[in-house]
């Protein structure tokens, strides 16, 4: 069985990506911030399957126990003025085991009529965002796609223009990495399109 590094070497070669070793993007999104500086290792970068330019790789960190993710990251800077923070996280996903604080930053749950979306994801945003923009992004078509197309363990975070898609599989194969990148590309494209309308 190939190691994780070997899988990413093969993935880079077959998808025309550049092996990037270990990358430290910094605490750009909540998930990356949980890592306290942990790198994406191994990482590949270039035009990801799905068409956006970005980085994909393995991201893990230890907070009492080790949490492992595979992530795809791209940028949609034009979204920052409409949605500084938007998190669509798989219901029940845990990203730390040592959270003992009783207070956190205020956020708003995104309300939609879709029970399927609510059952699958917790969708939150920063308070005081334009509700019309959010309603337009979460159109019935996008909601339907979100609950049917992405892998079951998929979540995405949009923070200040950075889109991070993540799956929780420990050793994904090329098909699973493709799915992660394609779904994240689609999410980023929809956010970009909505930002330009």
């Amino acid at each position: 069985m190939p190691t994780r590094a070997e899988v990413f070497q093969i993935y880079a070669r077959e998808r025309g990506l550049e092996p990037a070793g270990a990358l430290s993007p910094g605490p750009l999104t909540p998930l990356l911030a949980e890592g306290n500086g942990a790198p994406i290792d191994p990482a590949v970068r270039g035009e990801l399957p799905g068409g956006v330019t970005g980085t994909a790789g393995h991201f893990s960190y230890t907070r009492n126990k080790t949490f492992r993710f595979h992530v795809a990251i791209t940028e949609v800077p034009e979204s920052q003025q409409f949605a500084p923070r938007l998190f669509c996280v798989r219901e029940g996903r845990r990203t730390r085991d040592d959270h003992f604080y009783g207070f956190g930053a205020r956020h708003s749950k995104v309300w939609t009529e879709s029970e399927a979306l609510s059952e699958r994801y917790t969708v939150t945003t920063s308070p005081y965002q334009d509700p019309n923009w959010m309603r337009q992004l979460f159109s019935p078509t996008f909601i339907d796609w979100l609950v049917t197309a992405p892998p079951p363990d998929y979540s995405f975070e949009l923070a200040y223009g950075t889109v991070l898609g993540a799956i929780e599989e420990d050793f994904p194969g090329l098909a699973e990495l493709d799915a992660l990148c394609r779904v994240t590309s689609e999410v980023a494209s929809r956010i970009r399109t909505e930002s330009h309308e």
Partner: protein
Amino acid sequence: MQVNKVGIFLIALFGGLGIAFLLVPIGGEAGGILKLMGVIWVGVAAFMVVYIRRQKQKAVHNDWIFNQGLRGRATVVEASSGGTMNEMPIMNLVLDLEVPGQEARRASRTETMPIFTATRMVPGMVLGVYVSPKDPSDYILVW
């Protein structure tokens, strides 16, 4: 700031055990220590409840500004961290506010933010802002 499930659990824990300590029928020095602990624990729970109520009142006021206020933009001029609370940096921001119909002005603001937000607070960062129609110095920053 808003309370989360851990906060509700802590209030229930401190309040419940604090009351139990106060009611436990033990006399002597041990009983006195338990009662003192009970007072402290109930006090902690009461403080947290008061804090939550104030945060909720603030949120209601901010919601009113969001619905009734003037939308503008705030450009970060300076940002520095003045400590942390619950692993969240307390950020001191200097902002240039531009609100339609009002004179552009410089203002300072302290906000407790998650790390991934705090690291974005660099000079030039533009944020949305809603200003109270009653008081130009009363505004909410959208981050």
